[in-house]
């Protein structure tokens, strides 16, 4: 593959970066192992989105096209009522962008780990990276420093995640109305996310962020263009950071090392 756009690198680091991209069987298996428990929830969520697409009136072909090309459940769900209401296409596009805006933040977190890959690989990796994948990956590799098997671990998370979503979604498209909404199968996806969130709440700062984000998401639920989700993520991050800095200040004061600057 021709490398059109990867970052220029100092020559001596090229060898270290090879270990990031080189296939590493153990890391791949680790990714698989960490991701497998989420697949049931992912598939259930895909199923719910598949059913919703068909119930909105999309044909089977259109719904298949949407799940395979768009691959963004929350944006798809947000677009369906707008399609029903015959909203202008730019409103649908704007709503999808806002719903997806958290992915810009996620890409800023993940991309530096793989900046040396060819641009097509980077594009595809970014395109298929969902919420849970980012959380699981960042837990295992919090630092951007090159480490053996990073790419294999990411792929071990990504490929099964993509397959589970598509299988669930396609099943939903063909089952359509055979799955009653009151079964609440999508709740399985919510429970999977809950399990991933629990270990992330490792300190007071993270707990504050999660609580603020949750409260804002509920309070701002009715905002247009699904702005509530974006607002929740931003305010959650700000609050977490504020608590982190406050506790760092208190810590310094307690240990008597406070500077006058």
């Amino acid at each position, binding site marked *: 593959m021709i490398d059109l756009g990867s970052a220029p690198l100092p020559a001596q680091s090229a060898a270290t970066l090879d270990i990031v991209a080189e296939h590493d069987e153990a890391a791949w298996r680790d990714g698989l192992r960490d991701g497998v*428990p*989420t697949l*049931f929830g992912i598939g259930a969520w895909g199923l719910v989105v598949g059913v919703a697409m068909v119930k909105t009136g999309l044909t089977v072909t*259109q719904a298949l096209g*949407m799940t395979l*090309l*768009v691959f*963004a459940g929350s944006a798809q769900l947000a*677009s369906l009522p707008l*399609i029903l209401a*015959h909203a202008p296409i730019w409103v*649908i596009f704007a709503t*999808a*962008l806002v719903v*997806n*805006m958290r*992915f*810009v933040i*996620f*890409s800023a977190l*993940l*991309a530096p780990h793989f*900046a040396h890959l060819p641009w097509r690989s980077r*594009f595809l990796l*970014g*395109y298929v990276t969902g*919420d*849970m994948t*980012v*959380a699981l990956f*960042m837990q295992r590799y919090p630092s951007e420093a090159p480490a053996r098997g990073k790419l294999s671990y990411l792929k071990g998370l990504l490929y099964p995640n993509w397959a589970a979503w598509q299988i669930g979604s396609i099943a939903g498209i063909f089952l359509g109305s055979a799955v009653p909404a009151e079964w*609440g199968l999508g*709740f*399985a996806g*919510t*429970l*999977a996310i*809950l*399990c991933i*969130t*629990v270990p*992330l709440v490792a300190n007071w*700062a993270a707990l504050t*962020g*999660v609580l603020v*984000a*949750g409260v*804002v*998401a*509920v309070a701002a639920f009715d905002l247009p263009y699904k702005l*509530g*989700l974006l607002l*929740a*993520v931003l305010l*959650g*991050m*700000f609050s*977490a*950071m504020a608590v*982190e800095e406050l506790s760092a200040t208190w810590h310094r004061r307690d240990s008597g090392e406070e500077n006058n600057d």
Partner: protein
Amino acid sequence: MTDLDIWLIIGVLAIATAATRSSFWLVGHHITIPKRVQEMLRYAPACALAAIIAPDVLMNGSHLQLGLGNPKLIAAVVASIFYVLRRDMLQTILVGMVVFTGLRLLHVF
């Protein structure tokens, strides 16, 4: 809406996915993120996940539903406790779904 309209919508939705998810993967090395912002971004995944699940767990339609009458809330609390104790996601999802479905069918509260 015509078939073409729907495919145009699918097209712009795909662009919205690519533009956001692949953004920093494609142009990230041209942008330097300040250290403080980088530190803040570490909290983004947890905040995003919380923001996604909170409305599903705490709301019924578009209004807040706290208390015993909300089967998802009770199931989520039970599932969280179960996960903290057992650290097994698959079992937690099953327990949560059983509690949720049980409460929903039996109208316990």
